């Protein structure tokens, strides 16, 4: 009898835990990363293998955005090294920026399987702490950067409501990035 009571209590407790955790998952709002594709793995059109759908979407946007940035003379002072030539067979700045910016956006939109190991945004955009930052960013150049991301997202058919969310996310970084 005592054993039966013990198992009854244990099973009841387990059931409460399970249903309580399910309730939490149901109420949890999807992250922006999940809305952009999440962790579902799909074939990677570039390079083979599999890739998370969310990362694939963000990478496509980043790659398109890089072209828009490089073609904008107002952003040239900040991204000049993108157009720097490297020797044949060597790793290009395009590849480095694509990976690092994709990592950053994955983490910023809520992905859990990636890490951004660069400088924090304040230090990264402060010439006193980061010698690669030749000059401080101003609002006009940050507006151009956000506009470039929007164009990149539109080129990849990202739904307008998600573009708005990405834009809002970038706006939260404005006061940190813009230091002039």
């Amino acid at each position, binding site marked *: 009898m005592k054993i039966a009571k013990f198992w009854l209590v244990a099973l009841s407790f387990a059931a409460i835990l399970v249903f309580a955790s399910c309730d939490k998952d149901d109420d949890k709002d999807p992250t922006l990363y999940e809305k952009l594709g999440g962790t579902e793995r799909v074939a990677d059109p570039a390079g083979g*293998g599999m890739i998370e759908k969310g990362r694939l979407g963000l990478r496509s946007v980043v790659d398109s955005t890089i072209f828009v940035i*490089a073609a904008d003379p107002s952003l040239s002072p900040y991204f000049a090294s993108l157009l720097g030539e490297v020797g044949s067979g060597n790793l290009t700045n395009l590849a480095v920026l694509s990976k690092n910016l994709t990592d950053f956006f994955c983490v910023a939109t809520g992905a859990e399987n990636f890490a951004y190991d660069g400088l924090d945004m304040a230090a990264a955009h402060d010439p006193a702490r980061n010698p690669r930052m030749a000059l401080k960013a101003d609002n006009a150049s940050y507006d151009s950067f956000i506009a470039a991301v929007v164009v990149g997202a539109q080129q990849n058919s990202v739904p307008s409501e998600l573009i708005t969310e990405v834009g809002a996310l970038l706006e939260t970084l404005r006061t940190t990035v813009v230091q002039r």
Partner: protein
Amino acid sequence: MKPIILLMRTLGILLLLSGIVFICYTYYKAVPFINDPKANLQLSRIDFSDTLTANQAKAIRASLAEIEGVQHAFVNPDAGTLVYSHYPAVVSAEKVHAQLSAAVPQPMERHRVDAAALASGCPVTGEKGIMRRMTNFWLNIFRNPNAL
């Protein structure tokens, strides 16, 4: 055993272990790029003397598509700029400029980045010199740089 020999052996073992750790770390950093087709993809820019119309931009993109080694292009008509990606092992920026100049009538010149600008810029493009060289080392071992 003499202390000096013991010390040298210890230092030798530590050096060897450090070298192994360094090699593994640089390989780990290079892995994301080894199978990335963008690893050797160069970005170059051409500046036109004036703004471009939609038809001119379309003609420029069509001409670029004919050049082997060019992978993708974006035209900013309002700024009169063209950015394209290409594999330097197949076609250099000079050759692309020469071929495009022969194909379209608009005056253009190659956008060049000086040494000062190359040393600065967005921090996410920054890589420490030794890490970049080691990544190149692993890239050239595991990938054919001429493959598209």
